[in-house]
């Protein structure tokens, strides 16, 4: 994509000079060091990086699950930074969708009830047409009345995906969504994520360390030591693997660039 496209496209989520530190004094760990980026509507972005690079932290901050130490985060037009717990909850409920590595479905609810859970928590009316679209896309039509314990891992994760899209959020965050799945189930989930972006104009931000998973994205952001070190558009698995290798070497060559304080 080009810079002009980025400028004209609507922004679904944005980070501005985001710093994140845990602990204080001797034990302080800095996870993010002035990260600025944005995620355009209708695109599928992957965040990659080695363990401890801050990729999950960045996603948590963007999603309003964690607070930033410095800088600011927006979802759509809403500034996330500084919101009260109640407003954050509302934001997560209405503007954000989540897909977790552990599926995290409620065992007491059927697949359909799980999918509609965010709407029923919000007390919102179900848009049946959209619900049907989502259900058909994930291919769960005949599994709607099953309990999670009666579904395979891949099916459970597809339910979780459907749940994330059910409320038509501004952005869906997926945290290692294929981490607990075999490769076939994983690719089903990834296809679904990509299709929902392409066909229904949804926005997905996915954290992963799997180059194959990342290659489904339109764009990849590489993080190392809490900073964005690279970006890649329309990647292939080979490109990604190659880039990751270089990142790892870079991290090992320049250990002095890891100061302990902000």
């Amino acid at each position, binding site marked *: 994509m080009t810079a002009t496209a980025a400028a004209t496209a609507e922004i679904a989520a944005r980070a501005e000079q985001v710093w994140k530190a845990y602990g204080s004094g001797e034990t302080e760990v800095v996870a993010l060091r002035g990260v600025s980026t944005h995620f355009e509507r209708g695109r599928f972005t992957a965040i990659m990086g080695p363990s401890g690079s801050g990729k999950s932290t960045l996603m948590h901050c963007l999603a309003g699950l964690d607070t930033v130490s410095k800088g600011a985060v927006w979802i759509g037009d809403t500034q996330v930074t500084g919101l009260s717990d109640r407003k954050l909850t509302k934001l997560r409920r209405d503007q954000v969708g989540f897909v977790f590595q552990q599926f995290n479905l409620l065992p007491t609810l059927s697949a359909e009830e799980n999918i509609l*859970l965010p709407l*029923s*928590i919000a007390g919102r009316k179900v848009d049946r047409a959209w619900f049907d679209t989502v259900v058909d896309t994930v291919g769960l039509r005949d599994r709607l009345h099953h309990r999670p314990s009666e579904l395979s891992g891949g099916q459970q994760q597809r339910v979780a995906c459907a749940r994330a899209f059910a409320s038509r959020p501004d952005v869906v965050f997926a945290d290692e969504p294929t981490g607990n799945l075999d490769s076939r189930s994983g690719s089903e989930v990834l296809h679904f994520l990509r299709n929902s972006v392409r066909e229904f104009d949804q926005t997905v931000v996915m954290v992963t360390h799997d180059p194959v998973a990342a290659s489904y994205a339109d764009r990849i952001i590489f993080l190392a030591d809490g900073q964005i070190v690279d970006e890649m558009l329309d990647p292939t698995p080979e490109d990604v693997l190659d880039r990751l290798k270089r990142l790892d070497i870079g991290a090992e060559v320049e250990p002095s660039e890891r100061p302990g304080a902000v």
Partner: protein
Amino acid sequence: MLRSSLKGLLHRKLRLILAVIAVMLGVGFVAGANVLTDSLSSGFDKLFATVNENVAVQVQPDDDAADGETEPPRLTAADVARLESVDGVAKVHGDVSAEGVVPFSVDTGKAVQTGGPPSLGIGIDPDELEDPASIVRLVDGSAPERDDEAVLTKRTANLAAASVGDTIKVYVPRLREAKEYRVVGVLQYTGDRDSLGGETMVGFTIEEGQRLFYGKEGVYSGASIVAEPEVADTALKRRVAADLPSGFTAKTGQEATDEQASEIKEGLGFINWFFLTFALVALLVGVFLIFNTFNIVVAQRSRELALYRAMGASRGQVTRTVLVEALVIGLVGSGLGLLFGAGLAMAAQGFFGAIGIDLPDGGVVVSVTTVLISLATGIGVTLVSALAPAIRASGVSPVAAMRDVVKPDKPLRWLLLSGLLLAVPGVALIAWALTGIGGATLPVLGLGVVAVFVGVALLSPVLTRPLSGLVGGLLSWGAASKLGRRNALRNPRRTAVTAAALMIGVTLVSAFTVLGASFKATVTELFNDQRGADVIINTTNMQGPPDGRLGFDPDKLDEVRDIDGVEKAAPLHVSVAKVDGSDSYVSATDLASAKSMFAMTVESGRVGDLADDEAAVDKRTAKDNGWKVGDAIAVQPAGGGERTYRIVGVYDSELGMNGVLLDSAAAKLFAGDLANQGYVKLSDDADSDAVVKQVESILADYPMVTVADRSDMVEQVNSQIDIALNIFRVLLALAVFIAFLGIVNTLLLSIYERTRELGMLRAIGMARKQVKRMIRVESVIIAVFGCALGIGLGLALGVAVGNALIDQGQMTTIALPGVDLIAFVAVAVVAGVAAAWWPAFRASRLNVLEAIAYE
């Protein structure tokens, strides 16, 4: 293995803390009851030891000699003089004393009530007060010198608001009336005690005392003998015994002390069992809580336990790690319970003191037995509760360490079966106990009830889904409530066990409430019946069964009959008696008048004026004993000889009269001829309040006598029932409270288990308020479920016991206290909300990110 399980225990201490508290509360009650009775009996031991401190030998009438005759034998002055000459005797004090000598308040003119301890009168030798060995001394004024002078102990003076120089009215049983004395002195016991154990005591001159108590001077009821130095009590007792007139026996001071104390200890033993019963109920509830705790913790730890197994731990070792935890919890809980119990006992003693019950001071006695019983109960209960979960823990397969094993819900069929196997015999036992077959009714009833409790607890998982669904259906609005309901149904066993714990307390409270309401209804029905007496004179006697020595002079009823509006009045003399050899009561009355007062109907024979050797008996007593008209029965009232009476009539009374009835003249054969009760029939237009006032003034000199019209009577009995109900409710509150902790416990443990789920819910937009509501709904469902089970069982039990009482003629109707039962449900809802408070707070404050990452 031991190390790791102890470490694990420390790690999980928050999850187990409520189990510890449950053990602590249950054991605390057990220990408290023991400490209280030990402390009280130690107090009474000290009291009687003080009384008999300087007494080497006590001379008193034979027990059986006192039974056969109206008047016990007396020692004469000559007897006392002869005792003084016995070798080794230093001094002989002739005893001049009587019970039932009641002072009246100088302020209010009302009789001074002690509420249990005796009202004593003694004759005092002024020299004795000077004796340094005496246990009483003057703190004000002087000893009585003249016949119209009296001294009071400090407590008596306080209760009667009397001081030196006042004139005080004193009721003397032998005179059957009150007499006035001038207070000349106030006494205290050694150690500056106002009384020994809450009793009142009025002291007269020796001669006045003898006249008042025995009817003549120069006689004594017994004697206290002081030995010369170096003379052994037992040796002296033998020599004294050899010289005693017939009908008297000699005891050493120690023997007398033990005997006096043992009677009171018997009564204390009853108090101990009373409290222990409630402690056992609380412990039973505790069992449910502990069982649930271990079950849940074991389920949560299955991965860890599987790891032990994978590393080579045997099944036995896994079971033992769980049991070690139980042992530690039992030990810590019982230890704390012991302290808590001692505190409770101290508080109870303080409370008795504060409400004016002056008990002898025995300190706080924590005996070795109490410690052992408390530890054994606490540890035993915990181990037994943890046994099943511990065995279950060992069944975890090693492979469970590697992956999440989804355990399918086990079918409830076996639970259903074993529940029925317990509940059905339980119901049979209850039925057996209530029909009175075999006689051992109370323990069998208790056993039956416990069997039903455990049986229903086992059955309740089957009921969880329909019942909780119903309750939940009423509460489910909004997604959060719906999720809460689903959570309550999610683990039927857990919900059921938690609810069943609450059921126990609620069942007992409901059953007592049904019985209380039924008794009230019975009483109201009884007294509202226009056919019976309108005004009832009654004697409240706290000091033992009636025998004719307490009450009022039946001749006073002549004055009552003269009151405007009084149609007739009849006395009722009551005495304990042996009838055909078994303990019972007999009443003597003017049957012709009494017949209408009690709405008596004739079942067979003749019920009317009785001759000297004739008796009438109610149909139930007749049936129970197989008596019929024409039979002869042998009646021996307390303090009198045996006589044979012929049954001439069998009656039935709708107004509660029962037992063997004799003619009024038979009262002369009782220990005393005072009437215990009086019944007054008024004309239709009479003002009963005015009549009550007039009767009261006529009988003002008789302490313990109360006068009431029908509405007063209903009110009095109702308030007594209310007091009894409230005592039961307060004591059962402990069991309900432990069940309440059980709900908190289950919710807290469930929240641990569902941490990740809660994190997810918060992440996808559930507000804190919604999280709280979800947990509140789960809690309310458990509470209402338990309460509903309890009310159901309680109603059944109450109605069953009520029917048994109706069969025995002790009750006429069964009333269902609808308002109370609805109130219980309301309380359950409130309790559910309250129980959810802390778990809901914790759940709503979970850190979303950490919760999602929680394993």
